[in-house]
Every structure is written in structure tokens, then in C-alpha cells.
């Protein structure tokens, strides 16, 4: 018996590394299958303190490379906003001149904006095959929570997956696990936005009715979404897409957001999100 035990003990000592290897591999696969769902641990993502800090530091350096491009984009955006401001101002002036008509337009003082925008910086964009994620430098302390929408000045970026105190990880449009419904701006038929895992600049608008037609350059915007406001730009149609299902139509779209040079984004906080989801849950 004693001899037997000793043999067993020796066997484990000699081949223990094999057992350990098998255990570690099983554990890794456990991570693959559990962590790929939407429930993720903050510690195993780039939102944890050490990796996020490192990314923030290196982001400081690399951000200089894209400064020029980002500046130009900000200028364009600024000009657009100026235009809008001028139009609204002159419109407002007209209303004031005609004093009788202003009364119906007096704001209800209890009305507040439904969406609040939290500015954030991109500290890292990780590309790994098709597993792309974005790390932001704002977290729970700044009001960023999971399931909030993220946009850039050009268009939709993605949805917050998980957040730590000061950082958060975003799952972008350019990840096959991302789903969002979208539609052409001048149409009412919704389809879903799908990324095929190939090119960071293009995605597809699928599951559209067969009779839907497009013009090159048509704007694709968000339709029903609990996360994004209506009519936010996703991208622009560039041509006919590929689809396996003959009953539906698909368009290829160029994404409005450039993920290579992405630096400044806004996280969208929906003030009524909780109220809406509680109400919807109570019906189910």
C-alpha cells in the first residue's frame, strides 16, 4: 500500500506538469466561452487599472500622429455647427419679430434634454483578428455605465461593454458580435447593421425588404434603439451588398467613423433608460 502511494506520488511529481497544463488549458477555454458573452469581468479586460494606465500613457504619444487629421475634422464639425447656429438664430429672430406667434413656442420649463453627452478620449483600439475593442478614459465615476451608446463627431462608434471606476471598454460596430438596427434616412424600413470581419471602413445593412432601393451616398441612420437617439449617422451607402437570403436585400455601407484615427468620442447617457427598461420588463 505504502509502495503504491509512493508510486502514485512519484507519478504526479514526474507528470504533474501535464496535469497542470491540461488544467490551465481547460481554465482558458472556460474563459473563452464564459467571457465572450456580455457579462464580463472588469479585471480581465483592458479597463483594469494597470493595462488601462499603460494604454493611456502610450495613447498620449500616439495621439500626436493623428492630431492634424483630428483637428481638421473638428474644424469641419465646428463650421457645420456654426451654420446651424446661424440658421436657428435667424429663425428665432423672425419669431421674436412676430410677437403674437411666439406664445405657442414657449418651452415647458420641466422639459429637459433626454440625452446627455459625456466627452471621453480613446486610450486604445485593440485589433485582434475580428475581436476589436476600444478602451476609453472615462468610467463609472464619470457616469459611464455598460450598455450606453458611444458616438464620435462623425457617427456611431459602439456600445459600452464594461466599465471600471475610471475606464471603460467599448464594443465597436467593427466587431462581429455587435448588432444595431439601421435604415436609410429617407425610408422607414429598418434593417440590421452587420460587420463582416474584413475591412474596418465598411459594413453591411442587411435584412432589408426586397423592394428597397438606394442611391449611392444615401445616409444610413439609427432606427429603433434603446441606446442611441433616433437618426444618428452610421454611414453611407456605397453599393449593393452580398446576402445569402434571397428574400432580403443588403447594401454595402462605408462607416462614418474612422476607427484607425479615432480619438475623441461622446458617451450618450439616456436619462430615461432605467425607467424605460423597468417598464418594458414589467410587461414581459
Amino acid at each position, binding site marked *: 500500500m505504502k509502495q503504491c502511494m509512493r508510486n502514485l506520488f512519484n507519478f504526479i511529481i514526474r507528470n504533474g506538469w501535464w496535469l497542470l497544463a491540461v488544467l490551465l488549458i481547460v481554465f482558458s*477555454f472556460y474563459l473563452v466561452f464564459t*467571457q465572450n458573452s456580455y457579462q464580463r469581468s472588469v479585471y480581465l479586460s483592458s479597463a483594469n487599472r494597470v493595462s488601462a494606465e499603460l494604454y493611456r500613457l502610450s495613447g498620449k504619444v500616439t495621439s500626436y500622429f493623428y492630431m492634424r487629421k483630428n483637428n481638421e475634422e473638428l474644424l469641419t464639425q465646428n463650421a457645420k455647427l456654426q451654420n446651424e447656429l446661424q440658421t436657428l438664430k435667424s429663425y428665432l429672430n423672425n419669431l421674436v419679430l412676430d410677437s403674437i406667434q411666439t406664445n405657442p413656442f414657449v418651452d415647458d420649463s420641466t422639459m429637459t434634454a433626454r440625452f446627455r453627452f459625456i466627452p471621453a478620449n480613446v486610450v486604445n483600439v485593440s485589433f*485582434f*483578428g475580428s475581436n476589436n475593442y476600444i478602451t476609453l478614459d472615462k468610467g463609472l465615476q464619470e457616469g459611464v455605465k455598460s450598455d450606453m451608446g458611444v458616438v464620435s463627431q462623425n457617427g456611431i462608434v459602439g456600445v459600452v461593454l464594461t466599465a471600471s471606476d475610471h475606464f471603460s471598454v467599448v464594443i465597436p460596430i467593427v466587431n462581429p458580435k455587435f448588432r444595431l438596427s439601421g435604415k436609410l434616412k429617407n425610408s422607414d424600413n429598418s434593417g440590421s447593421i452587420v460587420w463582416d470581419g474584413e475591412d474596418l471602413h465598411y459594413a453591411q445593412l442587411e435584412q432589408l425588404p426586397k423592394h428597397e432601393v438606394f442611391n449611392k451616398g444615401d445616409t444610413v441612420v439609427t432606427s429603433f434603439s434603446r441606446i442611441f437617439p433616433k437618426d444618428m449617422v452610421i454611414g453611407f451607402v456605397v453599393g449593393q451588398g452580398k446576402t445569402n437570403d434571397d428574400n432580403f436585400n443588403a447594401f454595402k455601407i462605408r462607416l462614418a467613423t474612422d476607427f484607425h484615427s479615432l480619438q475623441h468620442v461622446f458617451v450618450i447617457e439616456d436619462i430615461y433608460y432605467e425607467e424605460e427598461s423597468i417598464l418594458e420588463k414589467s410587461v414581459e
Partner: protein
Amino acid sequence: MKITLLREIVWFVALILLQTLVLNRISVFGIAIPVLYIYFLIKLPKNRNLFYVVISGFLMGLIIDIFLNTPGINAAATTIIATLRKPLIDIFFSKVEYEDFVPSIYTETGAFLRYSVVMVLLHQTMLFFIESFTFFNLTSTLIRIGASSVLTLILIVALDSLIYRRISGI
């Protein structure tokens, strides 16, 4: 012994930083990503304790996973490679008797290249097929495995040649 351990720790950290902060931002045509951190396992001495090899491989993969938000993928692939390392070394360097033998491109050029090719190809295949549990497209997966392997091998050969030069002071 202590100096070897220290040097290995420095390599470990340096390769992780290089991989996450530099190499992962290089994405050639959106298909090839150099995965150089496996160089750490390739360069461990032949007679290194196998517990040490497996654990360091697992930790390396897990840390990379944390940085890339790919929980388990790199950890699983790298642990498998760490487990297969010993039999592969025995096959490719069967003539070498020296116990503390470290695979290098200068001492055994042909054997080192064959050994690296097999290690990298296995690693890439594991990586992309484990990743494919969540997303699959055979042609693009195969192209990615091929392109990433070639890129990784070029870097391994370059790095190994560079290190030999520095040590031998040429």
C-alpha cells in the same frame, strides 16, 4: 541561475509591452498581425523545468488577453504550445546533447528555422481557430493564419539575429 531568471523576467515584460503597445497596432492590410510574444517560449533553454514553461506560457497568454480584451484565447493557445514545446525540441534538436541548450539561429540555423515555423504555425492555428468559436469564415481564417505566421517568423528571425550580434559583440 539568478541572472538567467532575471533576464527571462525582463524578456517576459518587454515582449508583452512590445506586443500590446506596438505590434498589435500594426495590422497589415487588416489581415496579418505579428504575434511575437511566442519568442519567449521559443528561446527558453531545452532543460527548463516543465512546470515553469507551462505556467509562464499561460501567464503570458493571459496577460496579453487582458490587454486585448480576448479572454482565454491567447492563454489557451499559448499553454498548448508550451506543452508541445518539449517534444518539438526533442524532435528538431535531437543531435544536440548539451543540457543547457538554448535554440538559436546561429548555432543550428536549419533546425531553429524548422522549429520556429512549426511553433508559430501551431500557435497561429490555435489562436484563430479558438477565436473562430465566436466567428468563423474559413478562407479569411486561413489567409490570416498564413499572413500572420509569415510576419511573425520574419520578426523572430530578425530579433534572433540581432540578439546574437549584440551578445557576441560583432
